[in-house]
């Protein structure tokens, strides 16, 4: 049915004078199973359908979306989108140009062995309650513990006035948990996860969640006895888990979104210091640092077949041997800077929302060190794990992060754990200080909640990385007084 309605919508748009149109019909399904303190919490299932129509008419953009999937509503919505485009033309300075993209007729489906929507609820509850209990068994100071399994499906049909017709089904899921422990009024937190990936429930089954919870609990208890992180010191920083993914997310991922560079997001999340004049010249990282935006990586949360403009999934360098070489783009932003093609990054979180330039899998390519060697060859440093706090300025320069746990390293050995670690820096200096990247342990970490745009959209994206060392980082900015 969506194929017929899409054709209807494209026909109406053409008749009304649209020079370009695309339609996107989407069915979403979301399953959320949570536990807190050993009992179920937030058990829910939601479904949603709808469509969005994007047009260029009279030189302006227009978009309208609706939940009613009927022929009459498609006509009304297309008419509204064209009317809105006409209103946009009030400030237009010229024709909207789109980078060429080959017409696509195809389909893509996330490879899934076990449908996460069909796994019995009892099985998921058993898994979470067991992990929750495992944390509590190992932690005599557990104040509150929680865990969650989240699974989503997105079934999409995209048709454009240029002839592309694409059907795509994305499935992803993951499990995570955390415990907050408390002693003498001081809380500490430690988290665990299976990672979130575009896979079926097998992603969750691959990990011993209860064991992960036990390890997290042991570390949480240790945090209660740990000394505070040294304050206002400079030392080498090593990261190897999702916290490194988050650092990539904020400083490399958002920083290289071309819509931000061009000012499209200035009123919300800001812009980027990676201005166009820096391309192919600016040293963003050391020679060891290369990043790709890779929508083709197996299992990444930013893995798909086509973006919402019908552009085929791609893998391309953003930073090569430390030099900024590319951006994440849309057809419009690519054309604006003279690129021949979009990077294929346009995605929307709802049929009622406009697609935006979103990260795919922004991956730090592995180096040639062994993970253990990075620790062994660190004279004075700190290993930080577990995201706790993040903040970065609107040009993606000054950042500050707090993590759940830190381990001080002296002469190649981990000496002791410290609590409430933080670090701060300037993005290009920070990545420029990288002197070691591991070849082993490379993982694509996923986050389901990347916020951007107006109205706010939440997207699922991935960040591949392995253990990495940053030299001479400012550590321990707590603001404690």
């Amino acid at each position: 049915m969506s194929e017929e309605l899409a054709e209807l919508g494209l026909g109406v748009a053409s008749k009304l004078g649209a020079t370009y149109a695309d339609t996107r019909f989407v069915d979403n399904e979301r399953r959320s199973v949570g536990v807190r303190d050993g009992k179920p919490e937030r058990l829910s299932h939601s479904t949603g359908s709808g469509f969005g129509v994007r047009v260029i008419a009279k030189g302006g953009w227009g978009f309208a979306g609706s939940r009613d999937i009927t022929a009459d509503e498609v006509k009304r919505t297309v008419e509204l989108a064209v009317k809105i485009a006409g209103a946009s033309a009030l400030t237009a300075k010229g024709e909207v140009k789109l980078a060429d993209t080959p017409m696509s007729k195809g389909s893509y489906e996330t490879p899934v062995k076990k449908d996460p929507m069909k796994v019995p609820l009892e099985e998921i509850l058993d898994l979470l309650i067991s992990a929750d209990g495992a944390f509590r068994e190992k932690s005599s100071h557990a104040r509150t513990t929680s865990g969650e399994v989240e699974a989503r499906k997105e079934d999409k049909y995209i048709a454009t006035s240029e002839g592309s017709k694409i059907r795509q089904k994305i499935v992803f899921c993951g499990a995570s948990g955390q415990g907050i422990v408390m002693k003498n009024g001081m809380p500490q937190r430690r988290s665990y996860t299976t990672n979130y990936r575009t896979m079926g429930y097998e992603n969750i089954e691959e990990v011993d969640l209860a064991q992960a919870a036990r390890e997290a609990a042991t570390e949480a208890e240790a945090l209660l006895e740990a000394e505070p992180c040294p304050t206002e010191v400079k030392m080498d920083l090593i990261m190897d888990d999702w916290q490194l993914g988050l650092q990539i997310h904020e400083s490399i991922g958002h920083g290289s979104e071309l819509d931000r560079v061009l000012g499209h997001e200035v009123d919300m999340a800001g812009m980027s210091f990676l201005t166009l004049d820096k391309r192919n010249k600016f040293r963003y990282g050391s020679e060891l640092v290369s990043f790709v935006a890779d929508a083709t990586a197996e299992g990444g949360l930013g893995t798909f077949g086509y973006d919402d403009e019908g552009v085929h999934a791609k893998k391309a360098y953003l930073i090569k041997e430390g030099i900024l070489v590319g951006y994440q783009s849309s057809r419009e932003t690519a054309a604006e800077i003279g690129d021949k093609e979009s990077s294929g990054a346009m995605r929307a979180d709802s049929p009622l929302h406009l697609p935006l330039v979103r990260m795919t899998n922004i991956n730090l390519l592995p180096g040639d060190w062994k993970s253990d060697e990075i620790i062994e060859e660190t004279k004075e440093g700190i290993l930080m794990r577990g995201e706790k706090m993040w903040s970065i300025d609107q040009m993606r320069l000054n950042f500050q992060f707090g993590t759940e746990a830190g381990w001080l390293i002296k002469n190649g050995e981990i000496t002791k754990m410290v609590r409430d670690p933080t670090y701060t820096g300037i993005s290009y200096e920070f990545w420029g200080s990288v002197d070691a990247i591991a070849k082993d342990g490379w993982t694509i970490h996923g986050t389901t909640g990347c916020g951007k745009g107006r109205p706010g959209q939440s997207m699922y994206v991935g960040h591949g990385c392995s253990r990495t060392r940053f030299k001479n980082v400012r550590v321990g900015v707590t603001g404690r007084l």
Partner: protein
Amino acid sequence: MSLIESAKRTVERAVQEGAYQAEVTVFSLREALTRYTKNVIHQNSASRDYGVTLKVVVDRNKVGAAAVNSLDEKAIRSGLEEALKIAKLSRPDPDFKSLPEPRTIAPLRGSFYRETADYTPEEMAGGVKTVIETTLDYDRNVKWSAGSFTTSTGRLAIANSLGVEAEGEFSEASIDVITRAQSIGSEGSGFRVKRSRNVKELDFRAVALDAAKDAVDSMDPKQIPLGEYEAVFRPEAVSTFIGFLSSLGFSATVYQRGQSFLRGRLGTQLFDEKLTILDNGRDLATLAPSAFDGEGVPKRALMLVNGGIPENLCYDTYTALKEGKESTGHATRFGRGFGMPMPTNQVISPGDDSMDDLVKDVRRGVLVTRLHYVNAIRGDLGIISGMTSDGMWFIENGEIKHAAQQMRFTDSVLRVFRNLDALGNKSTVERASSCTTPAIKTALFRFTGQTEF
């Protein structure tokens, strides 16, 4: 069928199908956005959304929920089946006592304006064009403007099996403007936002002029050293602090989990005595007044901070009954059945000082427009970190000396209000934390990092 009839009918069906208790929320929502950057509209959209959230309880305390984005009977039935299935397969929650009992909800007029609902795409684009033209006319150094003009209108209906019935309409419009002034080697940025339930009350010229003035006045910013400063915060910045006070302190959920900074401090002089915060969901001076909360419990005034002393927490039915108390009417709206109770309509009592007075009182400090990307480092201590944004100035001996580059701060929001020197005499509606607040001056604020603009 009206939304409330749909909600009631679904509740009846849930009970017929074995639910011990049931709560159904039905909403319809229309949103429009005209977003522009560098003087051109680049995103312009409208949408019609609606949905039903079903929360059912079986065996007295096994809870399940489902949501569908459809008002179609078949889809709602399917959602109900799913919610019942989840509840039956769930485990008992000993902390769940009951959904709320019905209470009289006094009608509230003024939460919805037809003018906002009827506003057209052409009118929205016209408003943006006025902003752009006013901005560019202000000064030759003003180069471009960006921002978003949004309208949203909707209707919300809630019914439960104990007899709660609540229905209301709401509207909201906002225009925000970021303006950049540039000349060789120098750039300034100004920001202003205006919000109202009635779109006709937005003054596009005024908001554009204020942002343009700040953009020009903040050109050629100089870096200031790290350290502690006196600080005057405009209302937009204050609203960020209030948001963290709310989420880190005043939610009963956070308190019950032992993570609130108010643990053991309710009834103590935690803040300067000049700070008074009243949360009043029925106050039309706030942006989103409502007669009822997300469970259909009547909204009422609740004193959060009185003369610097935190007095009350915000409860929904779940957290209230856990302590044998009554809900304060702070269940989250659109929480899909599982939100956290939060302050929603905070009014910070103003002081006597004009903005000029606040600045004149500063010996060595800064004037801050707003804050960006703020997050909590230690919630139990109220420690947060973030950036200043869009216009900051260095003040010495009561006079603005020059524009300052943006800075990173790391400080406790508790300390900000403990060292509250003065409050402004003019409040504005700020959305960031659903509060209505004046500017403030604090005696100490800690900057911990610098950037390059």
